[in-house]
């Protein structure tokens, strides 16, 4: 009985020989080609990552409208509406079909009463206004310091935005795109990708004490677009703030001074750190808005170097009185 070890290789015919030879040569040539094509002096293949730049989100300046609107009152929604009305109405800033991003300060896992984050009622009002203007989508985002889910939940902003019909965008590690800020100290940094996917950006900061920059209002709020180890920025905080303000030019800025964190900022943590000011300040010039809002923290322009730095770059005027300004109570 034949064993399975007795099986023989068939004798090769011409056709078989040619196929065999061709296959072997092709494999050998392929190996050579692979070596030739992939030879490199670099240990790793580097793919140049695309570097983005910010769009200009601004609308044309119009002398017909005031440059700075200060609104006092208790009903935040009414105050926001009045402020935007005086500035020419929301349709001046948002056209139908546009995608709008709202940037509150939502950096901390803190309740609204502690004033570490923007008042959720103001964010809600702005989302509503944008949707009334016909915005296709309204996104609210921030790169938070504490856990993002906790920050947006605890600050009340998530539920406020949902109620108004907007969408909260949480930023994960994969949501950053390299962006050239073209600044003095800030050049290419990872930036939340949502900024590159919208048409309009509305800055809705809160007025807070900060021990190094002295205050965090509109311009300092742009720290919250950056990823990476942004705590290195504090080494040149005034230049960094001016760099960011020069790189991102928002459509509109509405400063929340309804509750102001007077000390122990930017985290706060105690109601005794908070003072009720019941004011919002709206405008297009972040430098003027910042310098106006210093009054809530008993500061002067001279004490806050980043305002001067921003003014020297032509980002706005620190003497807000030079602007056409309106003060109303609703």
């Amino acid at each position, binding site marked *: 009985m034949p064993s399975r070890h007795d099986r023989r290789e068939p004798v090769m015919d011409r056709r078989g020989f040619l196929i065999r030879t061709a296959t072997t040569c092709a494999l050998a040539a392929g190996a050579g080609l692979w070596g030739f094509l992939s030879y490199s002096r670099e240990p790793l293949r580097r793919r140049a990552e695309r570097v983005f730049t910010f769009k200009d989100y601004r609308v044309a300046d119009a002398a017909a409208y005031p440059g700075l609107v200060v609104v006092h009152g208790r009903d935040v929604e009414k105050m926001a509406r009045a402020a935007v009305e005086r500035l020419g109405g929301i349709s001046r800033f948002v056209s139908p079909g546009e995608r709008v991003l709202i940037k509150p300060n939502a950096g901390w*896992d*803190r309740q609204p009463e502690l004033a570490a984050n923007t008042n959720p009622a103001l964010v809600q009002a702005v989302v509503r206004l944008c949707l009334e203007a016909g915005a296709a989508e309204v996104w609210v985002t921030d790169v938070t*310091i*504490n*856990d*993002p*889910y*906790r920050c947006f*939940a*605890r600050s009340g902003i998530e539920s406020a935005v949902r109620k108004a019909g907007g969408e909260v965008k*949480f*930023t*994960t*590690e994969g949501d950053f795109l390299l962006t050239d800020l073209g600044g003095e100290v800030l050049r290419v940094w990872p930036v939340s990708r949502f900024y590159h996917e919208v048409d309009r950006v509305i800055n809705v900061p809160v007025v807070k004490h*900060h*021990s*190094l920059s002295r205050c965090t209002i509109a311009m300092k709020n742009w720290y919250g677009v950056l990823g990476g*180890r942004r*705590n*290195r920025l*504090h*080494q*040149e*905080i005034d230049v960094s703030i001016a760099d960011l303000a020069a790189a991102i030019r928002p459509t509109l800025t509405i400063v929340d001074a309804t509750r102001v964190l007077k000390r*122990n900022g*930017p*985290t*706060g*943590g*105690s109601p*005794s*750190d908070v003072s009720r000011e019941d004011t919002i300040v709206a405008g297009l010039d972040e430098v003027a808005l910042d310098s106006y809002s210093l009054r809530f923290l008993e500061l002067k322009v001279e004490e806050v170097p980043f305002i001067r730095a921003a003014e020297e770059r032509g980002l706005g005027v620190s003497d807000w009185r030079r602007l056409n300004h309106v003060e109303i109570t609703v």
Partner: protein
Amino acid sequence: MTLRDIRRVYSVFFFVLFLVLVGITDFRNIKGYEVALFLELDPLVAVTSFLTSWTLYKGLILAVLIIVGTILLGRFFCSWICPLGTLNQWVSHLFNRRRPADDYRVNAYRSVYRLKYYILTALLVLALLGSLQTGLFDPIALISRSFVLSVYPAVNLLGGGLYLRQPLFHGGVLIALVFLAILFANRFLTRFWCRLLCPLGALLGLLSGRAVLRIWRDVEKCTDCQKCLRYCHGGCDPHAALRFSECHLCMNCIEHCPEEAIHYGLPRAGSSVHVPVDVSRRRLIETAVAGAVLFPMMRSAAAARTVPRDQVIRPPGSIPEEGFLRRCIKCGECMRVCPTNAIQPALLEAGFEGLWTPILINRIGYCEYNCVLCGQVCPTGAILPLSVEEKIGAPPFEKPVKIGTAFYDRGRCLPWAMNIECIVCEEVCPTSPKAIWLRTHQVRLRNGRTRPLRFPYLDTSLCIGCGICENKCPVRDRPAIRVTSIGETRSSTNQMILKA
């Protein structure tokens, strides 16, 4: 619907429930669900933690349901409820490349199955003496830990998008390898873990000794074809004298008997005898003595319990270390729920006894000021549930819960070592007033000029040890401010200040 079908429905239901509970154990989805349900149903956790502390903590009372059920019905937990048992069964089935004839050999009882009773004995003796090592071998703690620390991060990495941040765990791969090894062992012996090693199975086997309702084989009808053996889960010899302590009540033998000779219920005329638990008394005494001898040796070692260790920062609400080791079963629930990923499984930081117990590693995360989730999910009370007010010391509470104290390393701190402006630690410090405060000094630079510079200081009496300063310090690899366990509220000895 046969009993086997009902068992299958139960096992799928409980396995899915287990996955769901692991899945929802986070800030957004937890909403007061009993996420540690399986750990609370676990009689081994209940019994051993009772032996270490003489209390049956809160939800662990649920284990009584399983204990009573097992006394009445037998060891149903293993193939009806236990997620590790179900998973092992599925994996065994998947790996099965045997000829049917070999299934009979593999599924017959072997004397090596006694091993689990000896492991149980050692764990019970250690627990009685005051050391809780149940977590290493308890199947529920093991599968929870494995899913939380290895499966969940892996799923998230592959795009599961379960949480915003990719979870990372200290030594997670070790836990993954142990888990995979347990699953792979099913390749060689069906339900290797359950039959050989599982101390919970052993405990349930012992409890089932007096069960009234059982599997019975009618010796008159039986033709000794042994088909009942082929799909047996427990390896309990249903074809001969049934070893009821090994029987999982999988009900497969009933379905596979061509003669309908096997039934579940009360014995009938002609039912075969059963064999009691097969353990050697001599081995049992030997194991108990070994455990008793191991205990003083283990306890006389230098560990965080005896010599406080800087790195052993326990989650807020943790009870003192001695008690902590009597309660913690290393299940990983606190690590799952921690929103910043700060709670990590210890390797040898807390000593051998403290393997895989939770510690905070502030370079990975930090203790979120307003967060108390870890205490809410702990099934055994190693971490007590706190309210936010209790944790942060808001009225009516006088003092916050302190888990450690931060210290500056001035040789690495930017202002102190390099005269570079930086106040990040002060900025993020969550207490009010801040524990980190700044003082401006005039510094003389190398070029002879002077400039004012803010230097950070720490007010030890306000620091709660949350570690956000360490986490956000720009000196990333070895931060210039680091938290160590000294001053922790839970310890009366790990203190440095007289007026604390």
